[in-house]
């Protein structure tokens, strides 16, 4: 087992090194092989996982390596900040350097194990390795079409794989110094990715991402410091903190960890870095949004949810995320660029995941996990499609896409299913949202007026998101009667196979939901919350999980109506019916109507201010509790 887990760390690193030197064909072969192997290992680990987490130590020399790597990394960041004259970057990095240096002198070597792998970690392994693997395969073709030198193409693939390794390590790390290093490594990877195109905008946005995520790093250092200096904790490791957290009742380290997570999750006011990340090649956006980077946020909150559950810190986090859910959804309505729309909706849905994780009851955690998985699949699908739109059809703005229904019916179909899968029954993301509403409904009375406000936020945000998806989809699906016979456009086999795989995975996971619930999601939730497994039982045709009843027959019929109905709708041909031109009430002049836009320029300053208020109050609440 331990060897397998270690192989999840070592294989991607080896592959990433090899990709730098191998020729193109061999690199392609290696990437596909590595993806298959890593996914297989992750899934196999889950089948072998028991309720007892696996803890293991690595040789002491690794401690030295980690420490040196920490310092080197910070020096690199300082270098980047000074060279590009961004004061925030280097000041934050120097502060971290000082704090880290001070902490290394203070800490006592009592820790025996550095890694801790439970089902939540393995859940992350599956998410990271399968979806990022698909993206790696996709980017083989994408980066090939990019205008840059051969070395930079290799370097791009190389970065993807060590990023995967960093994510795997992060999900397994127990020692918080290790965690800090991997956290910073993902920051570094995103920095390198965002500035990949090396134009002015890329460089600027990369620096924004860098300094914002530095705050996350600083917050982790704060958590470590508080752990070391609080006599009852002593040992800066997650397992220790969580075991002692409820009895010691000093919540500040957890508040710091929350902040680190929320920064990574691009919650207001730190939303800018994720929106700015759009300048990078599209596989990067797919990687950041679906399986890696931002998913660290719900992961951290899930990790610490047994302790923060029910505390004022959790309440503030819930309020913040409920607010972000609405604010980001409204922000998305003002956008026209396809990728920016997706980015805003990612922030909104991430807020919902973090909210559910902070609520922390077993059913809420199950909802968060369902959302994480299905959001990963859907967003990956949509972003890879955005890449196709950009590279094959040369379209970025949704208002330019009015001819897509005729030139790219396959792409449009995939986008349609992607959007629908985030919103409507019977898809998994819908089930997650449904769980969220019902769970919040059942715990709301404990939160009094806050619970009611959160409910209003979720209801409104959900409706705004549905308006958003229709708006975007509507801009691209129209076609005239002349092209009644739909012929799918030809896409490159690598694009086609990755998109089809994701579509297929989405449908299969949706159909398999009745089995995934008892054998996957609730198992992970039981491990993550440290509570007993919530039973999933069949009652007639209902699946009952906790107090929620999931009626199968309506969902089954919805499955026939929605994904299948839309697919059939593409191909169905009515015979013996006359085709006519649009009537348009006899209008002869051609009008062009794109969509409604909602300007949020005035509001966004307030959104940021409210976000800052919430972040400050997380710390204040934890401090004065």
């Amino acid at each position, binding site marked *: 087992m331990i060897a397998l887990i270690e192989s999840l760390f070592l294989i991607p690193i080896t592959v990433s090194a090899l990709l730098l030197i191998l020729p193109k064909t061999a690199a392609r072969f290696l990437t596909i092989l590595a993806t298959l192997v890593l996914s297989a290992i992750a899934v196999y680990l889950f089948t072998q996982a028991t309720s007892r987490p696996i803890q293991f130590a690595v040789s002491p020399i690794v401690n030295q390596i980690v420490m040196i790597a920490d310092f080197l990394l910070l020096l690199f960041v300082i270098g980047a900040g000074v060279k590009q004259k961004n004061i925030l970057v280097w000041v934050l990095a120097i502060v971290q350097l000082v704090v880290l240096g001070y902490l290394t002198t203070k800490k006592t070597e009592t820790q025996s194990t550095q890694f801790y792998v439970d089902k939540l970690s393995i859940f992350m392994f599956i998410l990271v390795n399968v979806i990022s693997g698909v993206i790696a395969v996709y980017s083989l073709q994408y980066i090939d079409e990019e205008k840059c030198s051969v070395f930079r193409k290799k370097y791009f693939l190389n970065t993807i794989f060590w990023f995967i390794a960093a994510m795997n390590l992060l999900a397994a790390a127990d020692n918080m110094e290790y965690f800090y290093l991997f956290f910073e490594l993902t920051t570094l990877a995103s920095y390198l990715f965002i500035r990949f195109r090396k134009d002015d905008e890329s460089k600027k946005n990369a620096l924004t991402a860098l300094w914002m995520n530095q705050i996350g790093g600083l917050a982790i250092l704060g958590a470590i410091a508080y752990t070391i200096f609080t006599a009852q904790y002593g040992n800066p490791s997650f397992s220790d903190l969580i075991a002692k957290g409820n009895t010691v009742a000093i919540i500040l380290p957890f508040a710091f960890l929350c902040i680190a997570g929320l920064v990574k999750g691009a919650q207001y006011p730190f939303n800018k870095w994720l929106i700015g990340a759009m300048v990078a090649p599209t596989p990067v956006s797919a990687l950041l949004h679906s399986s890696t980077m931002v998913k660290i946020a719900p992961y951290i909150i899930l990790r610490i949810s047994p302790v923060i559950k029910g505390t004022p810190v959790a309440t503030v986090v819930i309020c913040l995320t409920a607010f972000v859910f609405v604010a980001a959804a409204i922000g998305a309505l003002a956008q026209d660029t396809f990728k920016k729309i997706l980015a805003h909706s990612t922030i909104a849905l991430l807020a919902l995941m973090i909210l559910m994780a902070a609520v922390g009851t077993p059913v809420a955690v199950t909802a968060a996990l369902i959302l994480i998985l299905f959001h990963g699949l859907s967003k990956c699908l949509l972003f890879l499609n955005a890449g196709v739109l950009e590279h094959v059809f040369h379209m970025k703005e949704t208002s330019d896409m009015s001819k897509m229904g005729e030139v790219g019916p396959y792409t449009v179909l995939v986008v*349609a299913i992607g959007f*629908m899968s985030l*919103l*409507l*029954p019977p898809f998994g993301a*819908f089930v997650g949202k449904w769980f969220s*509403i*019902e769970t*919040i*409904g059942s715990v*709301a*009375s404990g939160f009094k007026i806050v*619970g*009611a406000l959160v*409910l*209003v936020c979720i*209801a*409104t945000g*959900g409706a*705004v998101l*549905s*308006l958003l998806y*229709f*708006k975007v*989809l*509507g*801009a691209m*699906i*129209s*076609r*005239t*009667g002349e*092209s*009644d016979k739909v012929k799918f456009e030809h896409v490159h086999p690598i694009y086609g196979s990755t998109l089809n795989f994701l579509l297929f995975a989405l449908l299969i996971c949706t159909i398999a939901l009745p089995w995934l619930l008892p054998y996957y999601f609730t198992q992970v939730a039981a491990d993550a919350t440290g509570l007993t497994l919530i039973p999933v039982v069949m009652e007639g045709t209902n699946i009952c999980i906790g107090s929620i*009843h999931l*009626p199968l027959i*309506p969902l089954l*019929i*919805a499955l026939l*109506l929605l994904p299948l*109905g839309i697919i*059939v*709708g*593409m191909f*169905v*041909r*009515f015979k*013996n*019916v*006359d*085709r*006519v031109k*649009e*009537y*348009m*009430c006899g*209008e002869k002049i051609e009008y*062009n*109507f794109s969509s*409604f836009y909602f300007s949020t320029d005035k509001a966004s300053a307030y959104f940021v201010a409210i976000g800052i208020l919430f972040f400050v109050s997380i710390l204040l609440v934890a401090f004065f509790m």
Partner: protein
Amino acid sequence: MNNSIIQILLIVLAPVLGGLIYGIERKVKARMQRRIGPPVLQPFYDFLKLMDKRKMMVHSTHAFLGILHFVSLWFALAVLIMGGDFILIIFLHLLATALLILAGFSTRSIFSHLGANRSAISVLAYEPVLVIIAVSAYMLTGSFNVSEIYASTTPVILKMPLAFVALLAILPIKLKKSPFDISEAHQEVVGGVELEYSGIFYEAVYTSKWLDYMFCYLLVFMFAGNNWLLGLGLVALTFIYINALDNSTARVNYKQMLRFSFWVALPMAFLNLLMTMFHLL
């Protein structure tokens, strides 16, 4: 046993009942304007006439989505009648609306696009309120199943009157009645999404409006609990209210509608949620 027969009958006859409601509505509306109005069965005569028309369509996907809209709406209504999960019902209704919106966008017709866009905005106006009402009902009955609301011995309207007011506020949006009939506004967007349908394919969109009547009035009926006489009374009053409103008001624009929904209907639903949460009634 008796109950389930009624339920199945209701589901099967839903389009017919909805058509009757529509027929009565035209009559009542005409009488309010001192006209005689068409016969009550006029919608069905129209239905038969439409069957007979020459078959025309813009393209097959457009026509098929219209039919799919009808089927999914009927299905959402069936789940409501059988007393399923409230949240699920709201989203199944959204699914049906989604299909119609997609149909509207799938042609190259300006009015169809405008109508679809306005339908999407209408969803934004009424959906949050419905979700809040559903959660309030949960706080009251302890279950998200509508069957619990049907079965409650004290009429729900006494326990959550504000929710009923909020529902009355959004019903004109859902039923596309003045002052909130922006999504089909004949004088502006010529019927919106319906415009490009004709003949037998229009039939699906036309009858799904009848289903929508059933859906909305069932939501009203629900507020009477197990007292079906009170339920019918509520439905009758709501019916008159909707038609009087439709006759006496002018259309607002979509911004005013959204503002009304967010500053009047939603706070009302929210207040109701607080009241049920703290058991004030």
